[in-house]
């Protein structure tokens, strides 16, 4: 896989690889529709998790700041979208205005979280961020009085889908004889967004800013002694990661049409963190792979556990939900035992092998 992306060493291989991936990405939703419409929705959710993981990877993978409350920024983005594009306040701003606003608001919250935690690292930082995530969720749950801001646990309904003029992302239409359902349209939008964000991540990693983050991750005291303003760089990492979370949240709102605080529980933060760790902290491709695997495998299990058991034993022995979590836990334990750096460890180790 590596040679397909190394444009300097293998220019032809790179273009063939990119073309193949592009074709696969274009055809994928139609192939999935043929299997079942549900799979397009599952794919969209997986892409949302890819976006989230890429955002969290900036904080955890690049800058080495363990964040257990990342889902809070997703919630902030989701609620920003919901409040500005739903009957709740009777505001219906277009999505291309709200998504940047959501990113900016989440970014602000990122800085708000970052500022008091600048001197914390590791376990201590994890605890504070965990608390922050819970605070945001509890606020969302309770801000229905005295002024009904979030509608409390009932959540916000009838959230607008994406619209550009008369083009509505939620409507089914036939273009050039092809059937575009709502999820298929969102799929294309999100794939484009993921590609942009992957490019941003790769460029950030390989820049003066990315190196400063890596320096902080490796040794904060040495980083400061080398003249890196660790305060600003940490805040920047929190802000960047949070704004990606905010954008993902906005898309989540629009695709679901309904959000409530229940979608932003601690388990979601842990899930995103697992994706980053499992895929390979600090490696953009690894993180994408981790997010895709951890989104799809449980879904595939959901559809296969029952028939497989019936075929083997003639009846259901273990509930699908139970076996899913069992296998998920087992997979994580095995991964950490045999590939502690993730499925695709960060590029550095690869480079080192080449140098030897």
């Amino acid at each position, binding site marked *: 896989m590596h040679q397909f992306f190394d444009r300097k060493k293998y220019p032809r291989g790179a273009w063939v690889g990119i073309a193949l991936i592009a074709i696969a990405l274009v055809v994928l939703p139609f192939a999935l529709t043929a299997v079942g419409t549900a799979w397009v929705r599952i794919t969209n959710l997986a892409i949302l998790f890819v976006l989230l993981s890429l955002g969290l990877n900036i904080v955890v993978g690049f800058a080495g700041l363990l964040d257990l409350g990342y889902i809070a920024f997703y919630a902030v983005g989701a609620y920003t979208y919901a409040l500005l594009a739903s009957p709740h306040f009777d505001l219906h701003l277009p999505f291309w205005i709200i998504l940047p606003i959501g990113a900016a608001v989440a970014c602000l919250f990122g800085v708000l979280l970052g500022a008091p935690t600048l001197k914390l690292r590791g376990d201590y930082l994890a605890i504070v961020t965990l608390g922050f995530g819970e605070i945001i969720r509890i606020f969302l749950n309770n801000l229905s009085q005295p002024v009904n801001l979030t509608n409390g646990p009932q959540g916000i309904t009838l959230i607008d889908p994406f619209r550009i003029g008369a083009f509505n992302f939620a409507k089914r239409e036939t273009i050039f004889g092809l059937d575009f359902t709502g999820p298929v349209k969102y799929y294309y939008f999100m794939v484009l967004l993921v590609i942009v964000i992957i490019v*941003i991540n790769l*460029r*950030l990693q390989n*820049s*003066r*800013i*990315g*190196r*400063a983050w*890596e*320096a902080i991750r*490796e*040794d904060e*005291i*040495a*980083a*400061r*002694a*080398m*003249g*890196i*303003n*660790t305060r600003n760089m940490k805040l*920047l990492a929190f802000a*960047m990661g949070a704004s990606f979370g905010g954008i993902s949240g906005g898309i989540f709102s629009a695709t679901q049409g309904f959000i409530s605080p229940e979608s932003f529980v601690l388990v979601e933060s842990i899930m995103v963190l697992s994706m980053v760790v499992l895929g390979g902290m600090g490696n953009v491709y690894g993180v994408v792979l981790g997010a895709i695997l951890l989104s799809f495998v449980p879904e595939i299990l959901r559809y296969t556990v029952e028939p497989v058991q019936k075929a083997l034993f003639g009846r259901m022995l273990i509930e699908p939900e139970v076996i899913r979590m069992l296998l998920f836990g087992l997979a994580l334990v095995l991964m950490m035992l045999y590939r502690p750096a993730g499925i695709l460890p960060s590029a*550095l*180790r690869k*480079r*080192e092998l*080449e*140098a*030897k």
Partner: protein
Amino acid sequence: MSSQHLALLTAKGISKRFGGVHALADVGFTINHGEIYGLIGPNGAGKTSLFNVLTGIYSPDGGEFIFDGQPLNGLKPNEVAERGIARTFQNIRLFANLSALENVMIGRHVRTHGNVFGAILRDKKTQAEEKGIEKRAHELLDYVGVAKRANTLAKHLAYGDQRRLEIARALATEPKLLALDEPAAGMNATETTSLKGLLADIRRDGTTILLIEHDMKLVMSVCDRVLVLDYGKKIAEGSAAEVQKDPAVIAAYLGGEVLLNLKGAA
């Protein structure tokens, strides 16, 4: 007047306490431009504490540093580095999981300006700056003699190379004063000799050096002047030869009782 002009760093009455321990008590000295200034003393004399106070890791309880005509009071470590003081660490603190090249490239951070937008958009200016950073990093690796190990992770370098890499990383910040904390520790005789050559090169190329070192042969052969600390106090200052003969220094190194016995015998 002329000494005022020559002075790069002046320390006045620097004090630092940790609980009841006076790590530094009223230490004062002046380092001139282009000098190699040695800082010696027995273990626990306060040498590294002085480095940490100088580079902003600790703030002093009293006294001040004047560096290049400006006070350093209250500056954070990164601001001290920006002013032009770079350091290495007694227990090497490289970015262990990054390559040697990247370690030096990080040293360029403080002298470059690329921001987030430049990093994302990769405009011409940013690209040119990136190229400059990489080129300079390669030059510095070559300068300290670890060019062949550019792509090796710092933690996999030989010990002597790690020490040299730390010097290269510090030089990347374009310091006026390079503060080295026991650069020869753990080096064999050959490595120490070539380190001596490197220190002479650095001085020749215009960087003043403040050197903490236990290897007396090295100190005596490269340092123009030496400051001796003991229990946080300055006990002697002067040329290597002068300091070596100073009874207070001999006492500090051989132990106070020896001196008393000698006196008793006389």
